[in-house]
């Protein structure tokens, strides 16, 4: 085994070695801030106030984590974020799959025009519609509610586009074979085609989950009651004026807690994330 590893390294070309070295360097650059946050979370606030570099010295403490568990609202905000993220993900997967199937396989009037209108959504930034959306949600009394946080994310042009392209890439012969067996449209969709789209579903699901979990702006102006904050707005609300100078260790312990779900998603679904980033989810 060790011999194989040596051979692997020896057998590489110089360009491979350079790429490997750059990859390690890039990984370190990305890891250092995370390690910094974790390190700070194990230090007393007062020590950090005097010298943030004390993170490299003893003593370390679990006090910040104990404080988070015993007195912080972070669990409530984490729950809110999970409800919103999971809710958005499930809804978007359902809607995008159905819409994608419809655009890829069905014929209906003005299909192409409707598809283009959907694609226009990719070109409209959130900032352009935020005021109108806020007004609509005010009128509907949906602010400070889970639907108020989930619904805006459901107009997912990217999801519809991705699933349409994926369904289009599946040979129509599969549908025809199922039709010969008397399968209904929905049965073909549900039993035959949907299982084939799992890589795309995973990609879309991960992006949707991470996007909803990390969203800041809409929760900031829609969820204005403390009990409805998501983790991003909640942690921001805990900072003092001229942030970060007091309670830094406590703040970082909360950030570690807040980052755990995202980390878990990455750990369990990294295969699909790589696929998604490399673009191979869209055949």
């Amino acid at each position, binding site marked *: 085994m060790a011999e194989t590893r040596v051979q692997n390294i020896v057998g590489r070309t110089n360009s491979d070695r350079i790429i490997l070295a750059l990859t390690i360097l890039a990984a370190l650059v990305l890891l250092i801030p995370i390690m910094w946050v974790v390190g700070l979370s194990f230090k007393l606030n007062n020590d950090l106030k005097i010298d*943030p570099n004390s993170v490299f010295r003893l003593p370390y403490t679990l006090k910040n984590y104990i404080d988070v568990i015993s007195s912080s609202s972070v669990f409530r905000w984490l729950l809110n974020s999970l409800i919103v993220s999971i809710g958005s993900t499930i809804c978007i997967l359902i809607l995008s799959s159905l819409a994608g199937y419809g655009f890829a396989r069905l014929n209906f009037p003005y299909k192409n025009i409707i598809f283009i209108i959907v694609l226009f959504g990719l070109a409209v930034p959130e900032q352009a519609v935020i005021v109108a959306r*806020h007004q609509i*949600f005010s009128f509907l009394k949906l602010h400070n509610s889970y639907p108020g946080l989930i619904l805006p994310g459901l107009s997912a042009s990217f999801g519809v586009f991705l699933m349409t392209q994926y369904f289009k890439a599946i040979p129509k012969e599969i549908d025809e074979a199922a039709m010969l067996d008397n399968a209904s449209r929905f049965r073909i969709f549900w039993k035959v085609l949907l299982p084939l789209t799992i890589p795309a579903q995973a990609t879309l699901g991960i992006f949707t989950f991470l996007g909803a979990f990390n969203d800041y702006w809409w929760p900031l102006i829609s969820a204005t009651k*403390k009990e409805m904050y998501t983790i991003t707005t909640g942690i921001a609300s805990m*900072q003092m*004026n001229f942030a970060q*100078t007091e309670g830094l260790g406590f703040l970082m312990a909360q950030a570690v807690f807040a980052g755990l779900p995202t980390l878990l998603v990455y750990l369990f679904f990294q295969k699909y994330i790589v696929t998604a980033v490399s673009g191979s989810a869209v055949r």
Partner: protein
Amino acid sequence: MTKFIKGLVLAAVSAATLAAAVPAYAQTEITVQRFFGTCDADFGTNTDVSKSAGECGIITSQINKFNADNPDIKVTVNSVEWPGYDQLTAQMASGEPPDLVTMHESVISDYQSKGQLEPIDDVLKAAGIDPAAFTAAGRDGVTKDGKIYALPIDSHAILWHINLNLFKQADLINADGTPKLPTSVDELIAEAKQFKEKTGKPFLVQATANEKAMFTRAMYIYLNQQKSDYFADPTKINLTTPEAKKVVQMMKDIYDQDLTTKDQDYPAMVAGFANGDGGVEVNGTWVIGDLDTLSKQEGNPLSGGYTVYPLPQLFGGEPSYYSDGHSWAMPKKDRSPEQLAAIGKFLKFMADDDYDWSRTGHIPGIQAVLDSAEFKALPHRDTILSIASIAKALPSAVQRQFAIQDILGEEVASAVTGQKDIDAALADAQSRINDLLANL
């Protein structure tokens, strides 16, 4: 027996009816929204305000105490990211603003001019608070069109926080132990050079990166010292003046001659000064408590050697200063008489307890507290007390003061760090600010 059962049923029904008729013990609920962060781990349940410290600790404990003292009122706290105005604007747009909100006095005009704040004269009167009890700066800050729009709780300004240990090393101490403070720009540069020569460290510890407020506030102070009427017309700023150029030139000279720390953001500045990185930290009233506590501990660069003064009078003339203030404002919304009474009670509590708030380092918003021996006995208040009588805010008709602060801070920083010519930076600041004010 039947008669007995009938009687029993009748008694039970009567008792139930009576119980239903007696009103349940009802709490009046009000929501207060504030910045200053959260500190539940340390002060989440503390009701002894005297044992709290720092802005967050004190305000949390004050509200806890109010809730404990007033079981008929429930104050729900909504803490928001500083300064929280985006959120407040969104809440107002959706018709769900809080009952009370912490607001900088410099921001009141923005909301008041759009009719989004209630005048609170009647609430104050009913609660027994006389606006005459406010400090002059506080009263000016919350009065718009002859009406009171908020309860002022402090005035705050930026200051020179001084490491006396390093000043001693630099021979910058008077015979009475006080620091030698410059009285002109030339003296400032000379002192800063002497300091650097003797200690090997920069004179000023400043946040020059990702920080806009400090440059702007210093700018206002030095412009006020020169009697520059940069906001003669509240809808237009005039920055293309010799006075403004002098101030930025001084800041740039300090920067170019390495007499200040560079490329530090706010947290780095705070930690750096506590670590003895330089002689003077340019920061606000709000860090006095922390730095004083640090100086009373052993084994750090500030041990036994901290004091604080207003920014020195470098441009001659009469003493002049700039300050802003924190206040409690009441957004416009429908409220019951009970809620209005509860708000009045809350404001009265905050006004009466303004001494505790002043322990943060801020100058009180209530004159009686400012005059009290208790306040004057707090550490270092003697050296900064003059601010209370000389500090002025921007004219109250000037809108978007936070946005103006950001623009001016950006442009001054770009001039100081050499990214822009001073004249160009001031002209750009003026044009951007006037454009903003012309398109409200």
